[in-house]
């Protein structure tokens, strides 16, 4: 793979908090324009990896480059080329949706912050709520605004730390749609999740983080090959509660 086909490259990454090792030698690569899902249980160190890659935290040892820039040597360039959407929707609740977007556009030193804000409000169906305080937004709207704020200035790579945790099923599907659109437009998406189906739905590449190491990685197809061949069995399929919820809510809205 040539240099610019790789968006993230991590080798031998180690990090301990006080004397508790969190990362004990993490290696992986993320291809430019792909959706990469980092899977792991709570406390596995997913957020720690994101923080190191987003230059919020320094690793103890190992190398990490993001869009070709070393996170320790060129943090300024890394920040220029990325955007972070943390675990909790980081929107300013006292400002309106529009003001939040304009603020980020100004901080990214764009020439037309108002226009950028308006475009994103349209794209994320937030036009009606644009001039309301973000404190009044629902969880799903807040997440949408949060992701919209991350897209200001079209960064090459976006980190999404558990983007659907705490969202209702509809909110989740909405976020999934956004992520797919993003990758379709060439943005690299690095997301962490504890939901296996989310990784399965979205990711081109999946890595499983366990006890401080990547224990398995590859495309979903490759991961599936690691398991014994598929046996055909017939079972009665019960609808999941999620399917029931979505179909009844969908019917309500149609009426």
């Amino acid at each position, binding site marked *: 793979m040539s240099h610019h086909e790789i968006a993230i490259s991590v080798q031998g990454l180690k990090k301990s908090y006080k004397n508790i090792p969190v990362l004990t030698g993490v290696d992986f690569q993320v291809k430019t324009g792909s959706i990469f899902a980092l899977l792991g249980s709570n406390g596995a160190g997913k957020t720690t990896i994101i*923080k190191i890659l987003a230059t919020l935290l320094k690793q103890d040892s190992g190398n990490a480059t993001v869009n070709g820039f070393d996170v320790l040597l060129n943090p300024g360039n890394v*920040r220029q080329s990325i955007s972070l959407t*943390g675990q909790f*929707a*980081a*929107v300013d609740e*006292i*400002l309106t949706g529009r003001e939040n977007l304009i603020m980020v556009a100004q*901080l990214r030193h764009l020439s037309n912050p108002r226009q950028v804000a308006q475009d994103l409000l349209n794209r994320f169906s937030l036009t009606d709520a644009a001039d309301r305080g973000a404190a009044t937004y629902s969880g799903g709207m807040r997440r949408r605004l949060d992701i919209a704020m991350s897209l200001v200035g079209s960064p090459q790579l976006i980190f999404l730390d558990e983007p659907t945790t705490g969202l209702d099923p509809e909110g989740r599907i909405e976020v999934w749609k956004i992520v797919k659109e993003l990758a379709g437009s060439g943005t690299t998406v690095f997301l962490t999740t504890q939901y296996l189906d989310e990784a399965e739905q979205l990711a081109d590449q999946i890595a499983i983080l366990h006890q401080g190491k990547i224990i398995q990685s590859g495309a979903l197809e490759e991961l599936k090959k690691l398991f014994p061949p598929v046996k055909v069995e017939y079972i009665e399929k019960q609808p999941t509660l999620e399917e029931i919820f979505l179909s009844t809510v969908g019917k309500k809205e149609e009426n």
Partner: protein
Amino acid sequence: METTKNYFFSDMGVMLGRSMRHILRSMDTIITVTIMPIMFMLLFVYVFGGAIQTGTDNYVNYLLPGILLISIASGVSYTAYRLFLDMQRGILERFNSMPIARSTILWGHVLTSLVSNVISVIVIILVALIMGFRSSADILSWLAVAGILVLFTLALTWIAVIAGLSAKTVDGASAFSYPIVFLPFISSAFVPTETMPGPVRVFAENQPVTSIVGTIRALLSNQPVGNEIWIALAWCVGIMLLAYILAMRVYKKRG
């Protein structure tokens, strides 16, 4: 890194604009900050005042400097509170992962503290005028008073930044200000120190509030300030520098 330096002032402007919106949309914080000092002023002038011998015939004049310091000390606790919320909601992380001059994030909060404290100080002086406060000071003395109050605000605000960044809970973030709010009571702010018992008097005469109050009182009543102004300035500048260095260190550590 060169580019982020060039944007220092525009980034600072954005941060300041954000915090000013916070203040204007929550005027209750200004009211909360001014009400307690005004209550103290009413209590001391109309309840205790008659029994307090200060050697001056206008007790409001005697009392006002101490009241202003109390208002500033309680006002800065909002800086700690706002900073803590930014941290808890991930807004600090969002800013830190963007290509902006990082120190502007803290400076924005500090300047906001300055502006909101100026507003509350003006409100309190207006109330004091109604209660009979009169000053024969000229413009230059008023400017000197303003300068000392600004330095005092900056010194306390940087302490508030440390508290906000290192707090674990919202309550913890603003608890640091309680001892500072009560410092004027053990000083010459309300009563002369001559009647206090030995150790208390030693403390009262050598803590920062006494020299600051003494200087402001002298300036407002057109009396010579003597050496006291230098002691007051040394306290303010010393505390400010120390708190600034510590705050920056805590901030970098949180990264």
